[in-house]
């Protein structure tokens, strides 16, 4: 529980809270990106290099852009005239507190069952690669098929719209 | 082959890049104002008044007929005719302009004044570095600023000036011949009258 951990935790929590409480949807998306980055830094603090960089590459580089595009292409990007915080902030805060309480209780319960101060094993990228190809090859292939299906579906949806618009 | 155009383009720009250090055709910049291109003979900017000889007031060809002032489309020439007459190059007494001003901020270099002048007095100059910081009168050129010698005219428009000079010399020769013929005729008439008178007297 070092100083770095507290700082990163504060950053992540602040990002998450801002994502929930702000009125301007694009600001919320950007705050969510800060939360993702905070998570990635926490992974790096735990010496999980691959997970941290993959989190940055995938979440900040792709998912955040996706979220922002989705907001822009719908009506959510209309900027509110007044106020910084959304008017449902109390409800959001309550829900967040409830979820946090449940998760914290379950984690604290499980932590007390684990042996204390076990040094986490450093996992190299090579070990991850070997595990993916040998032990986890079926989930890898299923995920690949899922991604291909999603890509083809997106292309079909976009094509279909264009045809419909042309008619 | 796909990509061939790109490679040819890259070769051409490389040739340009390395050639610009060696050949003048691959570096066409003229660094004005340290280097200048000589003006072409047919270049024109704004009009000027031609004078023959050394003294600009005595040799000014303009006789203040005011045709150019009337024909100028944007009306940028302002002429004031004199009250007295001065002898011109041919010896005939002519009017002269007391005030001849051209506003070159209005002049559009159409050359109509040059085309209509019957006395070859106004021609087009090639000077363009005329900017001034006097906003209200700096671009109104007066008689003295407009008068340039015939040698200057030869310098800037050689063939045109030679042709004009030939024409003026031919006119002068015709005028002289006519005057001489008239003088010969009067001399002959006087001689024949004197002979007739001498014949009658004898």
């Amino acid at each position: 529980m070092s100083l770095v951990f507290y700082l990163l935790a504060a950053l992540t929590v602040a990002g998450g809270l801002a994502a929930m409480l702000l009125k301007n949807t694009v600001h919320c998306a950007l705050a969510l990106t800060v939360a993702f980055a905070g998570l990635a830094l926490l992974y790096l603090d735990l010496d999980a290099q691959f997970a941290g960089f993959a989190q940055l590459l995938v979440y900040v580089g792709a998912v955040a852009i996706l979220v922002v595009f989705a907001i822009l292409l719908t009506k959510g990007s209309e900027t509110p005239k007044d106020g910084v915080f959304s008017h449902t902030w109390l409800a959001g805060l309550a829900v967040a507190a409830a979820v946090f309480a449940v998760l914290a209780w379950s984690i604290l319960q499980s932590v007390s069952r684990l042996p204390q101060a076990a040094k986490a094993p450093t996992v190299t990228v090579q070990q991850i690669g070997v595990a993916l190809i040998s032990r986890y090859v079926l989930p890898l292939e299923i995920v690949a098929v899922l991604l291909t299906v999603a890509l083809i579906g997106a292309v079909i949806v976009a094509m279909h719209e264009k045809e419909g618009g042309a008619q | 082959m796909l990509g061939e155009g790109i490679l040819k383009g890259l070769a051409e720009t490389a040739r340009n890049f390395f050639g610009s250090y060696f050949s003048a055709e691959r570096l066409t910049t003229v660094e004005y104002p340290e280097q200048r291109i000589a003006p072409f003979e047919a270049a024109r900017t704004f009009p000027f008044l031609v004078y023959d000889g050394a003294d600009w007031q005595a040799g000014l060809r303009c006789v203040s007929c005011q045709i150019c002032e009337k024909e100028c489309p944007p009306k940028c020439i302002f002429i004031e005719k004199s009250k007295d007459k001065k002898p011109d190059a041919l010896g005939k007494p002519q009017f002269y302009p007391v005030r001849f001003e051209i506003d070159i901020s209005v002049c559009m270099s159409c050359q109509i004044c040059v085309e209509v002048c019957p006395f070859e007095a106004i021609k087009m100059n090639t000077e363009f570095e005329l900017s001034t910081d006097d906003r209200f009168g700096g671009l109104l050129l007066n008689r003295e600023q407009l008068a340039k010698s015939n040698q200057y005219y030869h310098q800037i428009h050689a063939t045109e000036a030679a042709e004009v000079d030939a024409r003026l010399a031919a006119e002068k020769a015709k005028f002289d011949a006519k005057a001489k013929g008239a003088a010969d005729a009067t001399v002959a008439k006087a001689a024949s009258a004197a002979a007739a008178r001498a014949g009658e007297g004898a």
Partner: protein
Amino acid sequence: MIETADQIFVLLLHWLVSFLPASWQPVASAVLCAAVIVCLFPALFALTVWLERKGLGRMQNRLGPNRVGPFGLLQPIADGIKSLTKEDIVPFSADAAVHFLAPIVLVVTVFMGFAVLPMGRNMVLVDLDAGLLFYFAMGASTELAVFMAGWSSRNKYSLLGAMRAVAQMISYEVVLLLSSVVVVMITGSLSLTRIVEAQSHYSWGLPHWYIFTPWGLAGFVMYAIAATAETNRSPFDLPEGESELVAGYHTEYSGFKFALFFLGEYVAMFSISGLGTTLFLGGWSAPFSFLTWVPSWIWFFSKLMLSIFVFIWLRGTLPRLRQDQLMNFAWKFVLPMCLLNLLVTGLWRFLGDGWLRWVICSAILLLAYAGIALGEQRRKHIGPRSYRYAE
């Protein structure tokens, strides 16, 4: 003596840091290295701006700037002073916080990429095991800054420019990653120092750089295309071309913030050239075995400046690609070639040493290239133009 010249910066760093107490030394060393990077690459940026203007001028049969200082060398300083003293205009309806943060995010993420580039023997700021992945993670964050800039200006045209820029960057990011993966496949490690070390062997005086292999050459060409598109350089500079959407996503920026965008673009160019050098051109290793006495960092920066010159050369030669042409090119031509290259690299690895693998791999790549070229030609019906007049 040669060793000293090669390691001079490392020795200098150790000597400077030795003045501090031992517990502070790692932090001080990292801070000093980072400070050097932050000072060096903007200086290189100023030099590159001058080089670009003069180089482009010569390619276009004219002189570049030559009035400010001898040969115009002080022109970047004049440009810098101009940028810093201009009024900083923020549109009234712009989103002030995001508008302010966008250039900062761009510059920060771009500079982070330098942390893993080995600029000489033992001269890498952080020797990460997953160095390549770190680099691409930082590159991905750059797109976010571009989007932030375009959206916060509250200007339709900026937003359009930003969307186009982000679409382009995402498409070519895929190409960039796939063309780098072949290097990882052969080296067996994501660490950039290992990749450079694997290329710094010589046989018959010639180096083992990956560009001298069929898959490496194909990978390098595709990496170069993707790098040009990632940094929004000509011919892929539609999002920021001056004759297009004014200045695209940085239209509404003036003064120092615009200078930061400009700086960010050029430093991204350095960073991606540096990565390309590391992956394909052998990083800090010398081209011939008899030239290894020249310090390693000189080789790295020479190759970097060579790449910059190629960027400038491309800019002076090629016309701009339209957005749909650019995207077609990425998804329909470069990406299939990238995937084929992956296959060919796998074949290379498992065919074992010898001339056979050279022949087979080169043949596959050339056939694919020729096949695609023929297919495109036939589809396009390139021939004399035919006209149809109105009746």
